[in-house]
């Protein structure tokens, strides 16, 4: 039930809060009221401290009244900037009425719990604010204490200790000599099928049948493997040539599939 009235998260960047005062240069009196607080919790904490009692003993009711009075007093709130202050005011008004009205056993969380939660949060914020002040008040390096102004600096120069052994040395020399020694290349005589012989072979075989035949069927059977490679290449070129001349047609169903060849009757 409290969810409906609990304030939404702030979605304003903090810088805008400083803007409350700075942007309204001409009308400081109007905007002064919210200047300097980092959100409603911060304002509440400041009000709580004015009660001049231990934060654990503050009167939440009194605090709520102070806050509401404050917000009412800030006549010309810039609504878009002060929305969360107003949301807090609404929530505090709800809290106040819940605290004063006869106890509703069903309320969850109870108003006492909400009040305690607010108190705990104020204590925690106050603790951090004090801690920040004490931290900033310490002797800070570069402000109160100083490091050496002109340190010489420490440098580590890495020096390579080169390693190489006798075997690596002579082996390297051997490799150089081996690599650069004159080499005679012998090209062996290879059996080839010339394009001319492939052309005459393929065209004569095409005359025999009108069926599709695989290209490899045109190759000389029982040939030496090296000759077979040459024959395949020559026969392929021969087939292309015959197709170009309109004497044959070629067909291949899929990539790298068997190449089919068929003669065309003139």
């Amino acid at each position: 039930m409290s969810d409906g009235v609990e304030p939404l998260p702030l979605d304003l960047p903090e810088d805008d809060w400083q803007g409350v005062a700075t942007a309204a240069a001409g009308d400081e009196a109007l905007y002064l009221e919210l200047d300097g607080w980092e959100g409603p919790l911060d304002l509440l904490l400041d009000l709580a401290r004015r009660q001049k009692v231990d934060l654990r003993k503050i009167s939440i009711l009194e605090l709520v009244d102070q806050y509401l009075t404050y917000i009412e007093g800030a006549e010309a709130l810039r609504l878009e900037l002060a929305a969360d202050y107003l949301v807090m005011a609404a929530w505090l008004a709800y809290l106040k009425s819940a605290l004063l009205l006869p106890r509703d056993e069903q309320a969850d969380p109870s108003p006492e719990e909400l009040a305690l939660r607010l108190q705990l949060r104020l204590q925690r914020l106050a603790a951090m604010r004090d801690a920040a002040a004490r931290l900033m008040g310490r002797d800070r390096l570069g402000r109160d204490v100083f490091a050496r102004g002109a340190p010489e600096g420490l440098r580590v120069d890495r020096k390579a200790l080169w390693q190489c052994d006798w075997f690596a040395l002579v082996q390297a020399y051997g490799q150089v000599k081996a690599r650069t020694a004159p080499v005679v290349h012998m090209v062996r005589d290879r059996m080839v099928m010339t394009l001319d012989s492939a052309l005459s072979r393929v065209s004569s075989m095409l005359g025999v049948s009108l069926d599709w035949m695989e290209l490899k069927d045109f190759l000389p059977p029982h040939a030496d493997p090296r000759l077979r490679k040459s024959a395949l290449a020559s026969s392929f070129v021969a087939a292309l040539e015959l197709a170009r001349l309109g004497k044959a047609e070629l067909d291949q169903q899929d990539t790298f599939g068997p190449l089919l060849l068929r003669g065309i009757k003139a």
Partner: protein
Amino acid sequence: MSGPGELTRAVEATLFAAEEPMSAEAISTHLGGADVGDALAELASHYAERGVHLVERGKRWHFETAPDLAHLLRREKEEVRRLSRAATEVLAIVAYHEPVSRAEIESIRGVQTAKGTLDVLMEAGWVRIVGRREVPGRPVIYATTPDFLTHFGLASRRDLPGIDELRAAGLLDPVEDALAAAMETPVTASEEAADDDDRDADETSV
């Protein structure tokens, strides 16, 4: 009083010359592996009464001018970055609560924290991201650095002013824990699940 030993002189010269604070290990490495613990203690004690002190901050050692001479040495130009109030508060929250997520910082401050605020602290080298909280959303978590300790003259985080008292008073515990303790109502499972990061999503501006 006899003069300082060779090792002590070497440690003294090394730390005087160093551009950054050095850990005992780094000094030892620089000096060829000698054990420098005694030398550091001797130097710290020797310099304690002088105009320059040898101090240890977050396990790293450096020389700096004595704090009581601050009034003589403050420079005309303010070299130290002036932090906004928001930044000092965020820095304190990170230091006292670390590691802490942005949502946790915001829940303590009751206001959203501008992106730039944490950036300023990280750029100053005082805060860094140390990992992610293993809860839904895996938010990054922040902690202070050794440079933070150096800058603020803290030997370690235990030196943070008043940290023991704050801890004893439970003021470093989340509101939910304190609430549960105060009301003597056990925190229910569902509340606990929402605890770490989204804990205050709906009450950020309370």
